[in-house]
């Protein structure tokens, strides 16, 4: 067994194994979507989610009603309470 064979068997093959295992462990980290970190700039368009009306099932106020209310200009203040916080 000459020097090249020794290097191949005892250096290259272990390195390949290490590289393969590292790739397998780190792959999910590279592949997933970027997570938001607190304090970063929020560069996304605003979204407003409501409950799925089919899932809630009961009351379903028509959009027509909301339109009529909206045409009256500045909506009257409706807030009665709540809470706020910062981080």
């Amino acid at each position, binding site marked *: 067994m000459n020097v090249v064979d020794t290097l191949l068997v005892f250096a290259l093959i272990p390195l390949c194994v290490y590289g393969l295992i590292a790739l397998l462990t780190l792959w999910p980290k590279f592949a*997933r*979507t*970027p*997570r*938001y*970190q*607190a*304090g*970063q*700039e*929020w560069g*996304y*368009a*605003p*979204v*407003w*989610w*409501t*409950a*799925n009306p089919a*899932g*809630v*099932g*009961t*009351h379903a*106020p028509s*959009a027509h*009603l*909301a339109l009529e209310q*909206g045409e009256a200009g500045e*909506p*009257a*203040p*409706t*807030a*009665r*309470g*709540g*809470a*706020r*916080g*910062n*981080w």
Partner: protein
Amino acid sequence: MATGEIAHRDVEDVELGYGAARMADGRISVAVEQKPKPPALPFRSSELAQLDEALTLSSRETGLDFSIYLGELDGDDTRKAAEELHAQTLRPTHAVLIAVSPGQRAVEIVTGEESHRRLPDRGCKLAVMSMVASFKESNLAGGLVSGLRMLTDQAGPAPRR
């Protein structure tokens, strides 16, 4: 040249670009690379599904209209912006708006007339504290879901008619 007529270009003066090929009839077919769109929100689909389920279950159980606004709250007064959003809801008396602005590091819960009766400010404050604890750890979706659960527990089931 009439509309719809196929333009034939001379063979010599056209240099085929990357991904272009000349078809048998002389037409040039060009392959355009499709770049994947960046995600609209930094959430995994499982987190979005959890949020959707939490919103629906909260609204169904309590009979209140829970909604989550996620984005910039215009102006310095985040409270005022959130209250304006609350006024735009379909049923403001029953609406509970959770407005989160990660850029401004602010979270607002706005309740209407009936929802305030069911959800006292003290309960909202508790939910806000729980959400803020998660937001500090960069866990937006988890904080929203736990806040919704706390608000649901606080409001209790919908009154029977």
